[in-house]
């Protein structure tokens, strides 16, 4: 049973076309939801941690939000350099359970 589900699997955007990535989770008693960025051939890079519903975090063109059952990663006016796979993870028993990721491609 998947505890972390990300959608869509892949997303293609034109430069400047804003959109959102979704991460839904089924764990009870969420202790933290995490977003990472992964470039091809590299390890994931930490972006945000969210702890409670209603919380928001921002970094450049990225904004992460959290509800009781899902998180969204909003990308505003994306640039080609935002192309990457974005991973969502939830904390379970002290460790992270990762989703399969959303592969984002931004075309100039």
């Amino acid at each position: 049973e998947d505890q972390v589900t990300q959608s869509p699997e892949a997303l293609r955007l034109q430069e400047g076309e804003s959109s959102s990535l979704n991460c839904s989770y089924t764990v009870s008693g969420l202790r933290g939801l995490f977003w990472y960025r992964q470039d091809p051939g590299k390890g994931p890079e930490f972006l945000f941690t969210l702890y409670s519903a209603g919380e928001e975090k921002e970094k450049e063109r990225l904004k992460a939000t959290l509800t009781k059952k899902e998180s969204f990663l909003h990308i505003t006016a994306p640039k080609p350099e935002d192309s990457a796979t974005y991973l969502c993870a939830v904390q379970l028993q002290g460790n992270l359970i990762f989703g399969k990721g959303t592969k984002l491609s931004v075309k100039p």
Partner: protein
Amino acid sequence: NAGVTQTPKFRILKIGQSMTLQCAQDMNHNYMYWYRQDPGMGLKLIYYSVGAGITDKGEVPNGYNVSRSTTEDFPLRLELAAPSQTSVYFCASSPHGANYGYTFGSGTRLTVV
């Protein structure tokens, strides 16, 4: 500041061979982790350590072993390699656990033939 260093970057093993994937961090982090990443799948936790001398199993530990004799190093041992162990392996570290974010290495791509 190197962060988390993994060696080798690539390796091809024959079925039944053994090898050790090396992981070293220079940030004095207590927590260290080994994950595997298969195509189209999420990262799966193999083993983790909360400090020198302490290790514990993750979600997929079968076929692997670890040791943590120092704070800096956390090698992953594969005994009797099998094709199912073909994957990309990532080592990560954190100062105090998941809440502080993980720093990942660049990975080891392993193929078992």
